[in-house]
């Protein structure tokens, strides 16, 4: 009989006669019978999660009792949970484990890429496809309507909570917007041993106030006793533009512009010579022909071809690991260079990491982690909310008149309409950043007794980032100020000190108790500066020459500190190794709230029942695992800016002046204090089933959950008559409910041939509860609701796109519904006017919701839902001998996208911007009455703001990765232990109806007031990768 330390029989343990292939496995009662070749027999007994032992059997008849010891160091079998770890089979909460595969880490520079589509309930949205662009991660739906909705990351015990933290925009004086950068940095995917995604409250409550958005625990690789190993990996990735936007070529553009002029009874704008060359039209046709020799010609250009290039990414890394029984080490270092498809856009990363394990004495163990990374980033101009958003490279490429050095490309009358041309933006705009990130942790484990272990841990996370922006004089913005430079810095030091006492005790073979109690202190100090200057007589140094600007802004310096003190405890009780009870509790005090509101209490309980251990199922041949789990818990959120319970007095952006024009320091209150602020609280119920068949060759998990978030921390828009436009308050409720499925099947698993398939699917429904706002009129209806943020500050899309209505899913699209084009006299006769202006043939037919014959704000209505119906991922991996093939698809179904770019590209209006080919060719004309786009010259796209013409289905299915790998057969005397090559493709196939660059888009990352919007997003790439992995 084979049992564990608790005397519980072990099913499926393997027993092998040494030196032979003769082996058996134990049955449900842990019993086995083996026929051996000779006596005494030497048997090796092994079992997942337990230390293998060798036993000598001398008698053929005496039953052998073998006790296997649990092996806590075998990480793969152990799930790291908050402040402790637990055997995978004893998990009571909803936790998804991801063990990154080498094919996956080779082509994904960021953690988010590893997670994408792999874990049910975890949705990753790329906020941009440029190098360095962050992704947003949401676990089980949106958990907050403002503030941070990103999960908490814990890397080897270090709290890394920085997804939304960045430098100030140094040029914040305008209405500019710098896309956030960073995401989770400081960790290289190639160093990751395992990722645990903690989803339900029973798992996350131990993180209390920061557990509400879920927790992602990352465990990095550590050294193993034995010979020192060297592992080298190298990846080259080639990316090409995919899914470009089809805009008019030069000939089409000329025809379009001349038609616009003709419609207004004006002279043409361009003249096409018989030889096909173009010139600006002057006087009349006779004049143009007579002076053909002297009139300068315009050079046609395809801005897309002229700008986009092949992007090459290289990633090289070496790791060295090994050690003895007492001292083990893991070192790794590497360099990544990730180019964008736009010239001068890149992200570089150099990093090293060091993990040491030292057994100091029989009772004392020290583990050390040091990681350093240096990042450099050069970004082109992405999403911007200034003016007509031409301060954006993609807008320049799409909308620029397709002529080189065309005057109107940089000489608009109205600054909101200026198109400088892509070349100016490539040459004369910089967004450069560099960052040093240091992660470190020291963990000291002291084994007090067999029962108690004390653990002290210090984790530190340091960031030092600088971001510099330059607008040269070839760009309109730079020309206004004779060159404009801004440099901002961020220095942040965060540390956590954890003191935990862990205990573990069996009372008899039926009762097992273990748990943790402890305290933690977590503090972060953040210092930020911003400098700005303009009017540069000498511009060669660009932003680095900021000191030479003749106009200098007073430097801004800001220092903030935030702290959390916590008390925590967890108790696991296992009865008969069948019934698992977990209770956790955490109390957090946050500096963000005033006394009296400061402490939050976060309890959780969970129960799991290992049904397969019950007698009635033990006999089942095929069932190897069956566990049901139920849990409930409270978690919190405190992710609001600091100092919101106070009214700090700060400087005005510009000082006042005395009568001699000299500066006078001017100080004003900076926000409306809310001393009543307190925790946002999430109450979550979870029920799940884990099952496994045929010795866990087929496994699966189903979870259902119901989350209710109360006292939402909202950045509430308030009437500006208060002196402020918003303030932070606890207002409103939100519920998320959903179901998640995950399956994994090793269909074939033998020495030569393996075939595995896996998949997951998550359905989440999100609903806004009581908002605490009295009902008001929104369009044609009355709701308790509030609107999101105005999308853009300029001519186009200057309305909010989202509405948050009590009882509905959050962030619904709110605008005008339309019904095609007014294309007949009959339709025209019945068409409503638009804000008093009568409709014309070829106008967009806006639906008059209230039937009063005029389109006004009263006709606004719900026109879309950015929330997906479900998200899913599936893949397969097969290998035969050394050859392996794997692929992975991920998809999202049923979400809408507000493609704001169509407001510029989808209307043949009266300005000089280039537009989509279909918008011109398929425009309504008297001779094309069935045209699906409005007439040439329709100029209301900006006035109508947001209509369902720009709402598109964002569903997609993407072949995100396919890899063919080859493991070189190596002889015993080969100097190499392993050699592996692979070729792979990323994003090779995309099925979607979305007409923008890519349906995976969210232009305003981390901004819950602007959701599901595509506003000048970057194109995606198709990538081919070659990877090499050597171990020796």
């Amino acid at each position: 009989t084979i049992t564990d330390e608790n005397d519980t029989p072990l099913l499926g343990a393997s027993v092998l006669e040494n030196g032979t292939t003769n082996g058996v496995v134990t049955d449900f009662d842990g019993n086995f019978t083996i026929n051996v070749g000779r006596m005494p027999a030497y048997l090796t007994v092994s079992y997942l999660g337990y230390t293998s032992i060798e036993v000598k059997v001398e008698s053929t008849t005496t039953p052998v009792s073998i006790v296997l010891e649990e092996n806590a160091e075998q990480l793969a079998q152990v799930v790291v949970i908050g402040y402790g770890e637990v055997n995978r089979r004893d998990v009571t909460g909803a936790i998804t484990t991801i063990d990154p595969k080498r094919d996956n880490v080779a082509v994904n520079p960021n953690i988010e890429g590893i997670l994408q589509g792999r874990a049910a309930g975890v949705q990753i949205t790329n906020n941009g496809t440029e190098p360095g662009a962050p992704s947003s991660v949401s676990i089980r739906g949106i958990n907050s309507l403002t503030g941070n909705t990103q999960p908490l990351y814990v890397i080897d015990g270090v709290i890394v909570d920085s997804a939304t933290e960045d430098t100030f925009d140094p040029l914040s004086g305008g209405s500019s917007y710098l896309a956030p950068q960073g995401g989770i940095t400081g960790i290289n995917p190639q160093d990751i041993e395992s990722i645990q995604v903690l989803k339900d409250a029973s798992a996350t409550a131990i993180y209390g106030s920061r557990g509400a958005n879920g927790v992602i625990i990352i465990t990095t690789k550590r050294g193993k006793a034995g010979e020192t190993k060297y592992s080298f990996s190298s990846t080259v990735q080639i990316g090409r533009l995919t899914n470009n936007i089809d805009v008019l070529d030069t000939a089409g553009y000329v025809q379009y512009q001349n038609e616009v002029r003709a419609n207004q009874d004006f002279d043409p704008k361009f003249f096409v010579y018989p030889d096909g060359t173009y010139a600006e039209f002057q006087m009349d046709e006779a004049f143009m022909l007579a002076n053909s020799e002297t009139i300068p010609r315009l050079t046609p250009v395809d801005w897309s071809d002229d700008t986009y290039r092949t992007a090459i990414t290289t990633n090289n890394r070496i790791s060295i690991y090994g050690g003895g029984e007492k001292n083990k080490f893991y070192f790794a270092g590497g360099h990544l260079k990730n180019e964008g498809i736009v010239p001068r856009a890149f992200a570089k990363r150099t990093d090293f990491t060091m993990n040491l394990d030292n057994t100091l004495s029989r009772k004392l163990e020290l583990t050390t982690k040091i990681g350093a990374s240096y990042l450099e980033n050069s970004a082109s101009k992405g999403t911007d909310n200034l003016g007509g958003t031409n301060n954006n490279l993609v807008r320049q490429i799409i909308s620029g008149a397709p002529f080189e050095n065309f005057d109107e490309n940089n000489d608009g009358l109205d600054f909101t309409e200026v198109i400088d041309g892509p070349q100016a933006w490539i040459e004369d705009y910089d967004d450069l950043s560099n960052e040093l990130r240091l992660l470190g942790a020291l963990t000291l484990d002291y084994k007090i007794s067999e029962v108690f272990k004390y653990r002290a841990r210090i984790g530190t996370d340091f960031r030092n980032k600088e971001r510099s922006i330059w607008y040269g004089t070839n760009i309109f913005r730079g020309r206004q100020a004779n060159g404009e430079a801004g440099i901002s810095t961020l220095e942040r030091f965060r540390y956590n000190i954890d003191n935990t006492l862990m205990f573990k005790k069996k009372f008899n073979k039926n009762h097992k108790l273990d748990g943790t109690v402890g305290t933690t202190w977590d503090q972060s100090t953040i210092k930020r500066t911003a400098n700005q200057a303009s009017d540069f007589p000498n511009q060669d140094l660009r932003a680095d020459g900021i000191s030479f600007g003749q106009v200098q802004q007073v430097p801004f310096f800001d220092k903030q500190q935030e702290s959390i003190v916590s008390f925590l405890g967890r108790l696991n009780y296992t009865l008969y190794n069948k019934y698992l009870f977990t209770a956790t509790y955490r109390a957090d005090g946050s500096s963000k709230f005033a006394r009296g509101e400061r402490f939050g209490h976060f309890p959780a309980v969970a129960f799991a029942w290992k049904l397969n251990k019950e007698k009635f199922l033990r006999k089942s041949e095929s069932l190897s695992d069956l566990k049901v789990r139920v849990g409930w818990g409270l978690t919190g959120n405190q992710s609001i800016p600091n100092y919101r319970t106070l009214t700090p007095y700060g400087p005005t952006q510009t000082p006042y002046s005395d009568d001699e024009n000299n500066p006078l320091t001017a100080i004003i209150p900076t926000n409306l204090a809310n001393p009543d602020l307190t925790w946002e609280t999430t109450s979550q119920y979870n029920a799940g089933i884990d099952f496994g068949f045929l010795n866990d060759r087929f496994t699966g998990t189903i979870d259902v959950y119901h989350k209710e978030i109360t006292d939402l921390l909202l950045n509430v828009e308030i009437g500006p008559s208060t002196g402020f436009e918003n303030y932070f308050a606890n207002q409103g409720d939100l519920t998320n409910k959903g179901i998640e499925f995950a399956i994994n099947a090793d269909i074939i698993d033998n020495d030569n041939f393996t075939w595995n398939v896996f998949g997951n699917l998550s359905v989440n429904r999100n609903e806004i509860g009581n908002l605490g706002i009295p009902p008001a009129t929104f369009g044609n209806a009355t709701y308790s609701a509030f609107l999101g943020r105005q999308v853009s500050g300029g001519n186009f899309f200057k309305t909010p796109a989202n509405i948050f209505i009590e009882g509905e899913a959050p962030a619904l699209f709110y605008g005008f519904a339309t019904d095609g084009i007014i294309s007949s006299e009959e339709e025209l006769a019945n068409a409503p006017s638009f804000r008093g202006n009568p409709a014309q043939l070829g106008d967009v037919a806006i639906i008059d919701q209230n039937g009063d014959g005029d389109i006004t704000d009263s006709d606004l209505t719900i026109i879309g839902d950015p929330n997906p119906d479900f998200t899913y991922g599936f893949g397969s991996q097969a290998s035969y001998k050394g050859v392996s093939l794997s692929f992975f698809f991920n998809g999202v179904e049923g979400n809408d996208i507000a493609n704001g770019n169509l407001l510029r590209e989808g209307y043949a209006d009266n300005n000089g911007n280039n537009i989509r080919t279909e918008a011109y060719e398929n425009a309504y004309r008297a001779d094309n009455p069935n045209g699906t786009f409005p007439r040439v010259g329709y100029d209301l796209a900006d006035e109508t703001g947001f209509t369902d013409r720009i709402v598109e289905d964002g569903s997609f299915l993407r072949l995100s990765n396919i890899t063919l790998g080859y493991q070189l057969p190596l002889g015993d005397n080969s100097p190499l232990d392993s050699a592996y090559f692979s070729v792979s493709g990323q994003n090779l196939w995309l099925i979607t109806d979305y007409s923008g660059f890519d349906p995976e888009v969210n232009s305003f990352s981390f901004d819950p007031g602007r959701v599901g919007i595509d506003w000048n997003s970057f194109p995606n790439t198709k990538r081919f990768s070659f990877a090499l992995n050597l171990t020796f």
Partner: protein
Amino acid sequence: SFSCEDALDESPETFFSEEQIYSTEQGVESVINGLYQSMADPGYHGSSMHGLIMPISGKFFSNQGASEDATSLNCSPVNTWITRLWPQMYTTVNIANGIILNLENTDVALENRETALAQAYFIRAVTYFDLVRWFGEVPLRLEPSTNETLHVARAPKSEVYAQIISDFEKAAATLPDFGEYLEGRPVKYAANAYLAKVYMQMAGEDNGNPAFWQNAKNEALKVIGRYSLNATYAEIFDLSNENSEESIFELQYGQNGALRNSDVIRFYTPRNSVFTPDNTVTFGRIRPNKETFDQHVNQYPEDPRIEGTFVFGSYEQNNGSERTIYPERTSGNDGYAVIRKYFDPNFNGTTTNRNFIKFRYADLLLMLAEIENELNGPANAYQYVNEVLARARTTEEGEVTEPQDFAGMDQDEFRTRILRERQYELLAEGHIWFDTRRRGYQYFLDEVVTPHNTHPTFDENTDFVYPVSVKNMLLPIPSNEISGNQAITPADQNPGY
């Protein structure tokens, strides 16, 4: 000893607390500076006042696409400028309320307490006076906003006016006299001048109370002789002559910092003109309407103020060439003259030293002439307007013949002429929206809508047709107030919007 609660108490290190600010004289001066700066901010006088109020007055044109609705007198509650103007005005009110609350209730002995309070009353009253005239009934907030006072309904105009009068009276009693405090700050007579303006408004508007003409006169007389006119009209806008003896209330600007502190230079200075340095960019976006220019020229063809107010016919460009504009050209942006009052040869593309004169003595003299005419007819009113006209005739080269003194008018004729006289004297100085509305709706239609829509060059296909709508007597309450203030609903919006 270490306590969790102490360690978790927030204390911003790079910001001041309210207690720190109000416990020292320097702290109080800094927040007073903040109060003026809030008023000078682009959201209020730096940009919105010009970008929105000039074109929507009906006397100016702007080619700004993003604000076409306001320029065409169809202002939307989401207009780019209006959603900045209203918040900045109330930011100013809130800062003033903070000063008043803290200083009225302090035990700390501060020598500048009374002067600081007086300035806070003055600025609060000026801001509410602008608010009530532009928006009608407005929320009347008299204490710093807290999370308990987020939602406040619109107060009747009479209440708002009562508060404005009370604040100005306190300011008149406690503001310093000339030379007692900083140059470039209002003195006590500024409060009297404003009281005269407040009473004049309350007397003359639709449903106004004519009894207030007498209050207006009493206050205006207190100001007579306290200030004096500059010698010539041109030097009022001479950059070296700021805070002159004519200035009653002037907002100070300086080339401090790299953020745009004001848009006036860019708004009024034509592009590529010699009026600013070569490498700076200006828009020349706000232009007087054709009829606005014509009215002045037709009245006084030889008035030196035409030269002082407008660039017309043509102007010199950076490259040496002349660019023709109205009246030589009549189409496009060049079909309008240019306002000359806000040029800055030292403009650096970002900041300007040019102050904004909110109230000057010539205005007060014209007010008193109008008030006296309403009370007693023209006889005793001529002296005030003629003081202004005499100065207008004075140039550096000597006295010219136009504009001639007012004489021999009856009360109605005087009224018509004095109102238009304000346009000739004060154009583009921020008064014309008020002056075209404060004598009632019919006056507005006759003075603004009809002359525009019937101008000889008017083309309804290319020019904005001004609507005949009572909505243009007020601005719309901005959408962000209606959505954020639960005590104001869409039903409370101003008439016509």
